[in-house]
Every structure is written in C-alpha cells, then in structure tokens.
C-alpha cells in the first residue's frame, strides 16, 4: 500500500542498484570490449566516476531548492520552453532505455531460451508487469526491489564465482587494452549507462530522508560498479583475446560455461528467471520516471492516467529497431551518449542558469 509514495533508505538503495546494475545482462559488455579490448573492465569504474561527478553537481543544484526534485527544478530554472524540453528529454531518455533494454532482453531470450515464443509475447509479459508495478506505485516497486535485489546479486556472484576455474590467466592483458582513447570511448558509454543515476534526483521529493539521499545514491553506485566490474572482468577472463567482442550475451555465455559436475549443469535457465525479474523491475521504474517527466512537463496532477499511454509508446518503441543489431546500435550510438550528456551537461547548464537568474537559495 502506497503511503504518500515515500522511499526509505533501503528502498532508495534497492531501486538505484537495480537501475544501475541490470545492464550487465545486455550486450553492453561486448560493446565495452569492442572499444577498450582487454581494458573493458577499467571503463566501468571510469564511467561510474564520471557519472558521479554529474550526480554530485545535480545534488548541489538540488540543495539550492530544498525539498524539490530535478524535474521541478529544471522546469523552474530552464523556463517554460527550455526547461520543459529538458524535462521531456529526461523522460525520453528513460523511455528509450526501457524500450532498448526490453527489446535486447526479449531478443536475447528468444535467441537463447525460448526460440519458438514470439518477441511480442516476451515484451507483452514485461509490459504487463510494468503496468501492474506502476499502478502499484513507487513504494511497492521499492519493496519488490528490496526483496529481489539480494537474489539478483547472489545469482551474479554465483555466476562469477563458479566460473573461476574457467578463467584464462592474462586474459586482461595488455593492461591498457585498446589504449587510452579506447578506454575513454568505452568509459563514455559506461557514463551513459550510469547516467541513469539521474533517477534519484528525479525521485528526490519522494525520498523520506533527503539528508542521506546523496550518500544512498553513491552507495548504490559503488555497489553497481563492484558488480559490473566483476562481471566484465569474469567475461574477459573467460573469453579473452578478442572473443568477448563476438559474444552477444556475455552473461548468458558465462551461464553456458557453468558446469560443476553432471548434476549442476545447464543452470543458465535459473539465472534467466532472475534476470527477467531484475529487467522487469528496472523497466517498471524507467516507465515510472518517464511518466513523472511527462506529467511534470505538462503540469498534470497525477501520473496514473498516463501509464497506458506511455506503455503503448514503450511497446511501439521497443519494436522500432528492425533487428537486434539495430537495437544495440541505437542503444550505443544514441541512447547512451544522451545519458552521458544529460548527467554531465544538464546539471552544469542548470547550475549556471540558476546562478545567472538568481534562482534558488545561496550556493552551498
């Protein structure tokens, strides 16, 4: 039961960790490996550190407007045109993230587990979960995440831990991989991934203990970086020397590699269930953030009437790429750079605008 939609500290950490971790089952790992080669693992903390800079700028901005979230502040500082456009861009970003994640995840399930089930059924199932979660509200989503996150993380730990015997020594050498430029390029992609940390400033008004919200966000970021770096490292060590670049679903392939005796093999299907729940949770939150952005931009009093509309948009957008390659390209070339631009660019512009226009309280 939603009680004013307030998020406690565990809720904040759970929601943010889910949002920032679920990229590991997408082809983003091989995208990072293609850019940075054997140094792909460095791109993860690098991207997260860059995103953390943007995040701290946003939190600095929010301190000038106590009790208000990024959407409201953007609208006030940016004005009716630019501000509204930026708020809609936040919404578009989360919608694109949701559609891209769902599409690639759906195609992955069709390729790897259920080839005879149409993609529309997979996406439809996710859409139903998203619909139900959004009607349930933020607090319900936070509780579900708090419940599922340990299992999700545990499944990743098992996947990495049980594959230690498959690690190929020196798989992460040469240490700088494709060189500094390659690492920076992969780092920017990772920044786009961790750019989803903007979810917390958007949800800020619904956080019960706002004084610790910034720290809780960073806790989730650190946790996600630890998980993400471990998974990328394990993937590099299991598929070194350029092989990781050719793997579309590296995490699933780690599952395929798992073989601990005859009676503990073909266990990847167990992980698929975990990934489905994690993906559904992330998509539900992404849709929620899209709804909030849209409603704030147009000053609508409640978000629930918008849910079906946004869900249709999500479903249509997920089917826009003609194939999995197009879906990955759209995600890598457009969506992630947009995320990086939003997390790094938007706070700088808004901070400057707030100072120039003399809006908000004093700069801390």
């Amino acid at each position, binding site marked *: 039961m939603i009680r004013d939609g307030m998020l406690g500290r565990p809720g904040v950490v759970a929601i943010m960790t889910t949002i920032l971790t679920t990229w590991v089952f997408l082809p983003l790992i091989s995208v990072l490996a293609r850019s940075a080669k054997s140094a792909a693992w460095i791109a993860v903390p690098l991207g997260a550190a860059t995103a953390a800079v943007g995040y701290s700028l946003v939190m600095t901005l929010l301190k000038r407007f106590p009790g208000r979230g990024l959407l409201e502040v953007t609208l006030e500082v940016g004005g009716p045109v630019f501000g509204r456009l930026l708020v809609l861009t936040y919404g578009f970003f989360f919608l694109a993230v949701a559609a891209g994640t769902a599409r690639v995840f759906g195609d992955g399930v069709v390729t790897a587990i259920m080839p005879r089930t149409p993609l529309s059924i997979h996406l439809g199932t996710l859409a139903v979960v998203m619909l139900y979660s959004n009607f349930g509200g933020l607090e319900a989503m936070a509780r579900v995440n708090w419940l599922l996150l340990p299992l999700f993380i545990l499944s990743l730990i098992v996947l990495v831990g049980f594959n230690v015997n498959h690690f190929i020594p020196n798989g992460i050498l040469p240490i700088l991989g494709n060189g500094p430029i390659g690492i920076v390029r992969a780092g920017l992609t990772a920044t786009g991934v961790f750019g989803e940390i903007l979810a917390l400033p958007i949800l800020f008004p619904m956080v019960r203990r706002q004084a610790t919200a910034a720290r809780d966000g960073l806790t989730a970021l650190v946790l996600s970086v630890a998980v993400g770096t471990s998974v990328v490292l394990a993937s590099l060590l299991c598929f070194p020397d*350029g092989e990781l670049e050719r793997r579309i679903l590296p995490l699933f392939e780690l599952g395929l590699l798992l073989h601990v005796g005859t009676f503990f093999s073909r266990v990847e299907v167990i992980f698929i269930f975990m990934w489905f729940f994690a993906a559904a949770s992330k998509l539900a939150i992404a849709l929620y953030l899209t709804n909030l952005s849209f409603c*704030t931009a147009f000053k609508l009093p409640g978000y629930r009437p918008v849910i079906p509309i946004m869900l249709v948009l999500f479903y249509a957008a997920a089917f826009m790429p003609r194939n999995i390659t197009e879906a990955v390209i759209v995600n890598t070339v457009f969506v992630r750079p947009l995320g990086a631009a939003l997390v790094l660019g938007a706070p700088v512009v808004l901070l400057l605008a707030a100072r120039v226009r003399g809006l908000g309280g004093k700069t801390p």
Partner: protein
Amino acid sequence: MIRLARRRRPTVIVVVITVAVATMITAGCWDRTELNEIALVLAMGLDATPEGKVAVTLSMPIPRLFPGGMDGGGGDPSRSVHVETVVAHDLSEAVRKYSTITRRHLRLIHLEAIVIGSELARQGLRRQLDFLTRFHEVRWTTLMAVTDGTAADALKIPPTIGTNQADYLAGLVRNAQAKGIGPATTLRDFVVAVGSPAIQPVLARVNVVPSRPGLGSAGGQTGAQAGGQTGGQAEGQTGAQAGGQAGGSQASGAGPKQHLSYEGTAVFVEDRMVGTLDQEETALLGLLMSYGGQRTASFTVPDPLAQGCCVSMAIARAGRRIQVVPRGVVPPLVRIEFRPEADVLEAESGVDYAKIGNLRILEQSIGALFAERIGALLQKLQKEYRADVIGIGQSAKSHFLTETQWRAFRWLDVFPDAEVSIKVKLAVRRVGLTWGTVQSKKGFR
C-alpha cells in the same frame, strides 16, 4: 511535484478477469516438447567428404536400452545408442536433414563430445565452429577431440565399460586430464585459441585401436614406440608391458574387438591441424600449458642407478614460470623454469630411494631428462609445427601496454625463431609407503 492518486481497491471484476485469464494460460504449454519427442545428441562426429561437404555423425542414446533406464532393460553397449551419419553443406543443414527421417526433435543441449576426423581437421574447422558458437544449445564445456581415422568410425566403438558411448568418449578425454595423461580441450578453449594471438589450439587425439588378446593393443605399440623414441629401451619395455596389460583385460571377456585410446594430441595452427604429439610429449605439454592442461602426470623413466631398469614417478604438482624477453629486431628470448614435485611410484631395481644420496642423484638425472624432453618438444613445436600450443605468448603479453603494441609484436610469427632457455628443478618429495623394496631371503635379484 506529482501527487500520487489514491489507489483503488481491486474490484471483483478485476479478480474474475485475472482468474479467467490465468485459467487459460496456465492450462498447458502451447509449444511444449514431451520427453519422448526429444532425441538427445550426446556426441557428434565431423568428417570431410570428397565433394567438400561435411559428414555429421550423431550419437543418440536409446533410453530404454540404458541400464536403469525406461523399461529397465538394456546393457548391450553396441545397441544402446543410435548412430546416424548425414552428409550436408553445414551443421545446421545436417540437423535439418536428420529431422526429415525422425519424428523426434534433435537437441544438442547435452552434447558432451565432438570428434573430428583428421582429414577435416587438416582442412580447417572454421566453418563448423560458426554453428557451434552460434547455436545456443551447444555448451562451451563440450569436449573436443581429433581421431586419426573418421569420426564416424570412432563413434561406433562401444565403450569398454558401461553402455554410454558418448560418455565413453568424453570420459576418456576427461580422465586423461584427471590422470595426468594429457590435456582436455573444451569448445571454449579451442575457440579462444583459434582467434588468439598468444596461443595456438591443441586437441586430444582419440584413435580407434584393435584389441589384440595377449599381445596388447595398438596402445602398447604406441607406448613402445614412444618409449623407444624418448627414453630408450627400458621405456619401450614399459610401454609394451602396459599394452600387454590392457590387451589382457580385453581378452579376458567377450569385450569389443576395438576400443578407443587417448593417443596424444593434435597440434593446430589457427583452425587447421598441422601435426601430432605422442603420449610422452603430450604429458609434458599438458604440464606446461597456460590453460586447459593438467596439473599432474606420471612418467616411467630409466633408473639412473640401475641400468636396464625403470623408475616410475608421479608429478603431484608442477610449478612453471615462463618469461619472454623481447629483444627488438633479434628474436625474443624465452626462459622456461619448470619446477615439478614428484613422488616415487615404483622402483623395480630395488634401489633405496629413501636415502638422501640416491634421491639427489634421481632428482638430478630425471631433471636433466625432463629438460632434454622439454627442449625436444619445443624444438618440434617451433621448427616443425611453428605452433605455440603451450601458450608462451600469454606470458609475452605482460611486456606490452596496449593491444596495438602487442599485435605488432606478432608473437606467433616470431615464436619459431625464439631462443629458448630451459631450467628444470625437480624435487622428489615422497617415496610412497615403504623405505625400500620387497626383499627375498636370498637378496634382491
């Protein structure tokens, strides 16, 4: 700020709709596949054909003929699997072609082993690897092996013990690794090595050999040959003895007339087989490999203190340190430091190897022998096959910061000319449960 609307309580209509929908979608799986509609492929054989196609041999168990399987019958190894060969352009066409003659769905989810005929292996496996790495049912831990004849023949050999033919093949390779006989290469190991600039692939070589009662199998001949090549007359005798024992066990029952034998390894340059290594070389190779090899091995070598006799040693663990020193235009220097720790398994001469003095002589003598054999193995790999199947290149990587620098070094091209320095430091740690050998009243003869 958005104000959240008050949540409505679910109405009876919603509950009714949910129950109705659930009743429809949980009643059954619309694309279900029953167990009796599945044909599980446990082993796959790949051979070249004269017209440039691939002959795919599939080995599928017949569950009711497995002991303890359905109907509780079975037990005849030659009939418990169904082996079928299909000639096709590629593997997926082979699977499709086979599906035209069976009512069952062919599934590769339990594929344990892939055997490749030597002719196809020499032509190259790139085309076949595409399907094996693309199709989601094939798992990375599937073991791979090469056979000197055709894979189709290898898959028709019933197991010596048990009834599961595919398990026989995979078990043979897996057991070889566990017992220190040689490496067991999985599909993942092979695929990574094919594309790697640091290592070349190696596969187990499993051959069909005749069982010859009393005289030992062809394995015995191989042992003798290997012994003759590497260790002199004494080892040749040992190999023959081992063969004799194997042949004897076959002769004692109404066992199969042929069996499979782990005969060593096949060396590849990228996806093409370029040569073979015998059992002695394979055991050493496995100890030196950067991955996919084995941690233990056992050797029967000439006794340094008793001419004409042998001493058997088990290597419990083997430390290895490989250093590559790039030297600009001069070929690189490779320093191999091999530190095996051995136990004495058998000393037929009766020499007391518990004595410190004898132990030192044994360590030095066998250490020198190992150094000589590693040198010979490397010479073969460098000059004859030009293939770094040990993975020395993995150590060379540490000298380079970026992938561009590392690839420009062209390790696999410079490996054949690299200067190699080998240092072996053997330590005999234990001598078993006895200080000396069994003595007769008149003394040991």
